[in-house]
């Protein structure tokens, strides 16, 4: 058997197999580095400075963080973020309920589905404006209703007791629609044989839902949880449109507080804003880590 002539081994031909995946990954990695990782490092770096965005950066160490711990607005925002996080989760059972309700075949069901999905399609800004009018004292539908019921006017968005709840309700509307769509797709993949078998065994109603349907919806529930938690921490647009953090800062959340300090008309404290961003990032990191760990362990088991 004649030996094949030994071809000169180039670097490329020797490492083809190991390099190719990286080459395919490269565009994505560059983007990720440029637009995600480097800005994160920059934010952390800026958070140790006093900087107005124009002049020289002055290194002040952890002073921004010290000030943050002494800032009432920070605690108000933190408290509101927790409220958002907890109440926003209502979107998941809400979305499930709507999805179960819509998961039937009657005439025009597609139209109903799209109507329920509608709030997720329109911009958050529009949602915010609609709810602002809805709550508006004197001419809003909601305040008219409250006045009719109790004889007293309540300006939801001007009352520090109700303002955050008012905004969360506005946020729940599109978020419920989002969860609904996730569950509707999940319901399409339900194994009909299992449901049939369960019915034969006499399971129905809530029992059927809890023991047969929900376990099969677990992937949808997981995604719904992830997007809802992250969505609640990013709650910026509605706060900005509906109250701008007011009245007197009582509806602040971390993301809006950061924007206000760093970028708004009365702000331009880049260092302080960056410090808030870092704190928000750390809080998000906790959740993201939990999610990723769970996802990885599932992949390994699956």
């Amino acid at each position: 058997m004649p030996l094949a002539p030994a071809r000169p081994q180039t670097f490329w031909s020797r490492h083809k197999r190991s390099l190719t995946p990286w080459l395919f990954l490269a565009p994505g990695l560059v983007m990720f580095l440029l637009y995600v990782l480097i800005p994160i490092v920059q934010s952390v770096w800026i958070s140790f400075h006093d900087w107005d965005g124009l002049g020289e950066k002055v290194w002040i160490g952890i002073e921004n963080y010290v000030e943050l711990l002494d800032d009432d607005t920070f605690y108000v925002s933190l408290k509101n973020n927790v409220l958002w996080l907890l109440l926003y989760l209502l979107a998941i059972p809400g979305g499930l309920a709507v999805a179960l309700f819509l998961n039937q075949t009657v005439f025009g069901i597609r139209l109903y589905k799209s109507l329920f999905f509608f709030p997720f399609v329109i911009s958050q800004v529009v949602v915010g404006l609609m709810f602002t009018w809805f709550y508006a004292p004197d001419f809003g539908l909601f305040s008219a209703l409250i006045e009719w019921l109790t004889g007293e006017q309540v300006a939801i968005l001007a009352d520090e007791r109700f303002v955050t709840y008012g905004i969360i309700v506005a946020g729940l509307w599109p978020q419920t629609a989002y969860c609904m769509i996730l569950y509707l797709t999940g319901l399409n993949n339900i194994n009909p044989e299992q449901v049939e078998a369960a019915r034969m065994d006499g399971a129905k109603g809530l029992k059927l839902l809890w023991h047969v349907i929900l376990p099969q919806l677990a992937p949808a529930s997981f995604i719904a949880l992830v997007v809802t938690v992250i969505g609640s921490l990013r709650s910026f647009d509605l706060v900005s449109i509906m109250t701008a953090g007011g009245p007197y800062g009582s509806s602040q959340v971390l993301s809006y507080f950061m924007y206000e300090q760093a970028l708004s008309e009365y702000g331009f404290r880049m260092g302080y804003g960056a410090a808030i961003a870092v704190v928000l990032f750390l809080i998000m990191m906790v959740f993201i880590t939990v999610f990723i760990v769970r996802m990885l362990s599932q992949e390994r088991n699956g």
Partner: protein
Amino acid sequence: MRFLKSLAGLSLSAALLSSSAFAGEIILNSDQSDPAPRQAMEELIADFQAKHPDITVKWNNFDHEGYKSAIRNFLTADAPDVAAWYAGNRMEPFVKAGLFEDVSDVWEANGLNDELKSAAASMTIDGKKWGVPYTYYQWGIYYRKDIFAEQGITPPKTWDELLAACAKLKEAGISPFTIGTKALWPTGGWFDYLDLRVNGYEFHMDLTSGKVPYTDPRVKAVFEKWAELVEPGYFVENHAAIDWQDAIPHLVQGKAAMYLMGNFAVAAMKDGGLKEDQIGFLQFPQINPDLPMAEEAPTDTFHIPSGAKNKEDAKVFLAYLASPEAQSKMNKTLGQLPVNSKSETPEDPFLDAGFKMLSNAYALAQFYDRDAPAAMAKAGMEGFQEFMVKPDKVDDILARLDKVRERAYK
């Protein structure tokens, strides 16, 4: 690395392209997005070009709110030749960062030190002039003449008369004052006027430049006066939910009788259906009779960025902007007051009243959010809003404001 460099080169050349002005062309950035200011600006530019045919003006008109953040970008990255901004402390960050050009020579050469005297102090930082003012307007109490007549109230001149008028209106089921504090700044007008009347102009300037703590008993005294209106409920309810425009229907429908506002509100009141003879204007009443009356008159200005390409022609433009004929015509369209004392006085009755009031004023304050630096203004007006809802928390609010003061002015 090569890639990064070429990327940088690309963006640089793009920046150069967009700002390469021809000789004899000046680029002007401003925020006259409302109809009247826009028209005034168009006329100004047309008249200027007719007078100086060798110079053309390229005008970039920004949205009013967006301009406030855009200016920071374009002053550093791609400076125009002329930019609109505001007087007082509002321009200080740009002056201190070396982004505005010293235009004292324009003032000197055109006799502006004399003609624009009333605004000279608010255009001066470190003994130099940093821009040219072209318009201002008065603040004061606009009231429903017909309601006052019905209730037999004469326009109050002192604090006690004002309180008596408020009590009478309240008794008749009319809110004495309307206000919308959602955007915070309308509260600044109240604080400014109360401080100017209780403690005087010098104290107010010391306070807004950070020399006096907010925990000072004299500041507390201002809030005590304010509480005399807040506690009996002399302001409309739910004001924190509405903007300044939304407060006007209260006045139009006769649910409220007075509105402390800038003169720009008159146009909105007329749009709402009020006739000119239903609206009256009165100077904010006297509180401390020993103090000379200072007034609130925010001034709008034009500046030359230090990164401008065509400073020569930009200075010609500023000189024209400062001239009596330009200011007369512009302010007629704007419905505001010219700064140049040689300009024609306006025919509008409210402007005429404002003009008389401001010409006799002891001094002019710019407005809380222009006199105080941004961080302080924001916290301050938030505190004012909270006070107008919960007047008993005044001590907490003032302690908090002083914490912000210590940081904002260091």
